[in-house]
């Protein structure tokens, strides 16, 4: 964990509100692990005031990639950055997905949740079999399909709410069937809370080990402000930034 100044290499507008930033970040690119996140500010004026958290989408030292959707002031400003612009970074932060070998893994991503599992999928593919369920509202919200088709996944299942791509429906529709079909031993998920909640209740009695990367409103990202708490099953609060963002699903009060 370190404060560093990143340099934008490319701020690629994918489609609609979706962007992929490639930036040079010497420290984060060397230290980052799948599941880690960074806090980012595109502003030099303290307006907006807080840094914003983003999962590390991918890295290849000295570069990292951040996938984001413009949803507010922070991401709007991020979308205006040009090559060579500087960006203030704190990271890498949080824990990471477990290191696994010889497992049969299912990754489940909802919308921009792909940002937190893509890097993990690529790492896992070196020593494991990996399948992916990836869904969003419509085909306009599902990105990186070309890359996903070329990284030798054991299975790629696409879903859209409106049926404009893949199967019409939500990502949780066929989870049990897919788990049985592939003999899945581990699941990793990232997406809206509602989606994670549904996943938990569907797979809680299966013999898989299940991990979720949680999203939260964060103030600092390194454990100081204590704002990003999530309630656990034993009625305590854990901090998404330092205890997570990756949790075993059964730890969380869904």
């Amino acid at each position, binding site marked *: *964990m*370190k*404060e560093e100044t990143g340099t934008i290499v490319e701020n690629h507008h994918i489609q609609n509100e979706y962007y992929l930033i490639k930036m040079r970040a010497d420290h984060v690119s060397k230290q980052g692990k799948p599941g880690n996140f960074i806090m980012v*500010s595109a502003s030099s004026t*303290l*307006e*907006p*005031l*807080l*840094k914003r958290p983003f999962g590390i989408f991918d890295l290849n030292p000295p570069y990292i990639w951040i996938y984001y959707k413009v949803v507010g002031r922070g991401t709007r400003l991020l979308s205006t950055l040009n090559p060579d612009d500087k960006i*203030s970074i*704190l990271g890498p932060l949080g824990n990471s997905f477990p290191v696994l070998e010889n497992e049969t893994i299912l990754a489940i991503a909802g919308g921009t949740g792909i940002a937190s599992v893509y890097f993990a999928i690529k790492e896992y593919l070196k020593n494991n079999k990996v399948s992916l369920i990836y869904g969003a509202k419509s085909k306009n919200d599902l990105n990186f399909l070309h890359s996903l088709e070329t990284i030798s996944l054991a299975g790629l299942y696409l879903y859209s709410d409106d049926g404009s791509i893949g199967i019409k429906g939500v990502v949780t529709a066929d989870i049990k069937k897919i788990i049985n079909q592939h003999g899945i031993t581990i699941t990793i998920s990232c997406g809206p809370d509602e989606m994670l909640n549904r996943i938990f209740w569907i797979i809680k009695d299966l013999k898989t080990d299940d991990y979720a990367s949680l999203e*939260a*409103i964060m*103030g*600092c990202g*390194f*454990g*100081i*402000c*204590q*704002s*990003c*708490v*999530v*309630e656990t099953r034993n009625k*305590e*609060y854990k901090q998404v930034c330092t205890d997570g963002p990756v949790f075993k699903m059964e730890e969380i009060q869904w």
Partner: protein
Amino acid sequence: MVDLSVDLGFIGLKNPVIPASGTFGYGEEFLPFFNLDLLGAFVFKGIYKNKRMGNPPPRIQETPAGLLNSIGLPGPGMKELKKIIKRVYQSTSTPIIINVCGETDQEYLDVAEYFDRMEEVAILELNISCPNVKSGGRCPAQDDKHTYRLVKQIKQSVSTPLIVKLSPNVTDISAIAISAEEAGADCISLTNTFLGMAIDLESRKPLFSKIVAGLSGPAIKPLALRLVWEVARCVHVPVIGMGGITTGQDVLEFILAGATAVQTGTINLIEPSASIRIIKEIEQIMKEQNLMNLRELRGTLKT
């Protein structure tokens, strides 16, 4: 060579910059960023007698140039904190300040006495902005008589120097400051966060479970500066100013208004090494203005 040291009377600090309670964890979280020895002092997150969970989320909302928080002072309780203090004390010679909280006067007293017995604790800061269960949720800081009574009681029981931290959410802050001083406070710090609120239009509900929340950050700097100026004019004990400080220039403005030292707050969340940058900026401005020490500047506002 400029002299950044300041004298609070009961203790000298190598410089006037003190990270504030609730924005600096227990200090050790900042070890990856800088050596704690570089700070004037630092304040631990506020502590109650027993373990507390804090408020349900959401706990923060960003506002223009500010941050609303309703964290609810979660913490491990004073016995656990003692272990942390002993550990952190090993990593720095910088004075450690414990921010003392309580839901009742007795709890404040118990916590103050507990840490009074630790040689590792240099200073106590009394957080009189905690809702008091025996005063219908009002905090001592909102009542000059309650402030006097509480500070007097604690001063009679502890020998560690006592800073009293004021709330800005009062009509006449000078009256509270004078009460604290008359009751024996060694120092006054201000200001705590300003009460504010946030509303969720869709649900037509307050965003925070406690309805109101505390505003901090650059948005409150002018408000805090005015209060520090007002309090510094009417008490004789040293004043520690805080509220929205993000630069060395901000610090020197608070010192001009009468503060002897300052606390940095919200900026620590955004830029972990901010306090160190701020110390360097103070030094730079002093050089530019041919100031040999900060005493020359304190309270010299031309009005």
